[in-house]
């Protein structure tokens, strides 16, 4: 899922304080699961903004709403009437949701209430960890399912940097060395031979090298 976290209340207030009628719009998908932008966070952040605005004497009215998915036009339609009645929208969706809103409602200011951080998983209660950098050409099959692009601080693709200490990364000693994990994993599935194959330099063209990416599926177009 996409993992995000909220901006601080002073930062949010600075973004929206020029408006009078603000809609705080949550998203019911990834950011609900990572506890950053679902219905509950909409309620908390809206209350906080109303209180902060009141303390500053600002005439800011804040209303709350949440739709199932902000990155999907079908769901965006459902918020059309509510959005029309507001001067601006503070989206608690990920960066994609914010931009989908802005594209769909061209005359309406739409702001990001969250900092979208990464693609990751819930590792334990209250802890999310990055697992994929969406490089566009997945190599997980070569590394036992552990991504060196994301999880090795130096993105080493042909073995460790030799700086690890007690199985932990030299860049951040709180983090396990990705290459230690790759070695152990390949060993446990009987594929250590993979490490003997030299991987050529990674092709970064499918990544962000040429700007944002588009995928077209002719078989699904109308």
């Amino acid at each position, binding site marked *: 899922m996409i993992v995000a976290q909220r901006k*601080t209340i002073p930062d949010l207030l600075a973004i929206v304080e020029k408006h009078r009628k603000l809609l705080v719009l949550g998203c019911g998908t990834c950011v609900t699961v990572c506890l950053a932008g679902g219905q*509950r966070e909409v309620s*908390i952040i809206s*209350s906080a903004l*109303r*209180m902060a605005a*009141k*303390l500053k004497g600002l005439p800011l009215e804040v209303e*709350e709403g949440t*739709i199932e998915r902000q990155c999907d036009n079908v769901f965006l339609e459902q918020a059309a009437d509510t959005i029309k009645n507001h001067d601006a929208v503070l989206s608690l969706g990920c960066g994609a949701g914010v931009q989908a809103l802005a594209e769909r409602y061209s005359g309406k200011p739409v702001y990001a209430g969250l900092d979208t951080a990464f693609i990751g998983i819930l590792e334990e209660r209250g802890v999310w960890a990055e697992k994929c950098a969406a490089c566009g050409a997945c190599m997980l099959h070569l590394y036992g399912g552990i991504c060196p692009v994301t999880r090795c601080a130096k993105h080493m693709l042909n073995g460790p940097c030799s700086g690890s200490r007690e199985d932990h990364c030299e860049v951040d000693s709180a983090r396990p060395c990705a290459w230690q994990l790759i070695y152990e994993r390949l060993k446990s599935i009987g594929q250590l031979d993979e490490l003997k194959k030299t991987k050529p330099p990674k092709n970064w063209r499918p990544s962000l090298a040429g700007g944002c990416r588009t995928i077209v599926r002719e078989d699904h177009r109308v």
Partner: protein
Amino acid sequence: METETFQPKIVAFCCHYCAYSSADLAGSMRIQYPPNVRIIRTPCTGRLETEYFMKALETGADGVLVAGCLEGGCHFVEGNLCARRRVNYTRDLLVEIGIEKDRIRMVNISAAMARPLADTIADMVETVRKLGPNPIKRNGSSKSENPS
């Protein structure tokens, strides 16, 4: 002078298994506690979300007291520990907003602790009395709507 006469409104979220029972016991034992608290019974403090605390303060409470079981004594194992974390989160949020964080407090009370509960409430009332009225009330009442 105003702070001496000011009667704060405190919302007290009390766990059914401990603090609420101790408030009951205080009644039976005729132990008095300040009438400033409005007690809300909750099945477990672990049921309480940050938004409840925020709504209480936004709609005019001067303080919020969250009273759960003694640590290790939660009927649902760790609901009171979850509640403490949420109270701490709310305290940080209040600082971001510009409101004194001491307007919300978590305490641990067993069902037999009628006297300590009364003392705790008195102490909370005193703390909030010193802080004065909830600052958001100085600029009129709050409004909250949910269109969807």
